[in-house]
């Protein structure tokens, strides 16, 4: 379970790093500020030893002192700051990474797979975040694959 690298999000503010057992809730705190809450999940059937390995692995990489997390947060802070400049404000955000490489049928990957998926290097999460938000701002019903009447 923890070998498959996958980063996913559920609208509006929940994300997961599957490979680390990490899940997040994002709380907007105003313009340019977001508070992140971070948890670790483990397989219910995992042994206590396995759970501990996953827990420590997650907190050492994606916790507040995380060897991966430190650099990610620094990037987010700096890219937020740089988007506030005169030139930055005039540039449309490009979220097209992998736009032609989305996977049409999630169940071709796994029978339990849901949602919209793509290969790992892809901004599909970001495109669908804004896409769903835009639909709701227009007063449309949220599109939930397999659940809409």
């Amino acid at each position, binding site marked *: 379970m923890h070998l498959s690298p996958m980063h996913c999000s559920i609208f509006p503010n929940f994300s997961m790093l599957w490979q680390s057992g990490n899940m997040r809730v994002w709380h907007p705190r105003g313009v340019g500020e977001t508070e992140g809450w971070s948890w670790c999940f483990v397989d219910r059937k995992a042994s206590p030893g396995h759970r501990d390995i996953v827990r420590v692995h997650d907190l050492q990489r994606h916790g507040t002192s995380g060897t991966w997390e*430190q650099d990610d947060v620094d990037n987010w802070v700096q890219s937020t700051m740089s988007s506030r400049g005169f030139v930055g404000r005039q540039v449309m955000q490009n979220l097209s990474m992998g736009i032609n490489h989305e996977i049409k049928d999630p169940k071709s990957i796994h029978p339990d797979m849901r949602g919209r998926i793509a290969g790992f290097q892809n901004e599909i999460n970001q495109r669908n975040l804004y896409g769903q938000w835009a639909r709701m701002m227009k007063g449309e019903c949220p599109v939930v694959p397999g659940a809409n009447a």
Partner: protein
Amino acid sequence: MSLDAMERSEMETWFSVSQFYAREARYLDDLEFDKWVGLMAGDIRYWMPIVSNRIGRDVGNELTVRGELAHFEDNHESLSNRVRRLATGRAWAETPPGRTNHLISNVEIGEVEGDLVNVRSQFLIYRSHLETDQEIFSGTRLDKLRPDQSTVWKIVDRTIILDHAVLTQKSLGIFF
């Protein structure tokens, strides 16, 4: 000076530990991380629980316990790996490194348990980074120290209790 903690007077111990802490802080502020790891015992437990806000009957449960999540949960190997990571030059959050000032104060020598001395200290760490990023960390360190022939003391167990619930600092890329 005798290395037997029991024979030493409290004042001698306090002085020795305070000097040790000043040296440890200097290693961190001068980015001498290899020397800093050299002050950790091979069986070091380095732990910083998460602090939350509690009210009413829940007051007293602010800190996560061992086995739950934490800001830091490290042993000698993982601390050494953190230091090796910093040395690669590819630890981007610390490239360039921040400028820190570890102020250690309120050193209190506690009980002696066998060859270990319990020590409590308070810290205020100032850090500036890049052009104008500034942050301050405040908290308490609860240490168990063991006398050592080469480094005077080694840190066997460190619990760091931050005075922060939500971290407004960018990350915890420094050592405490």
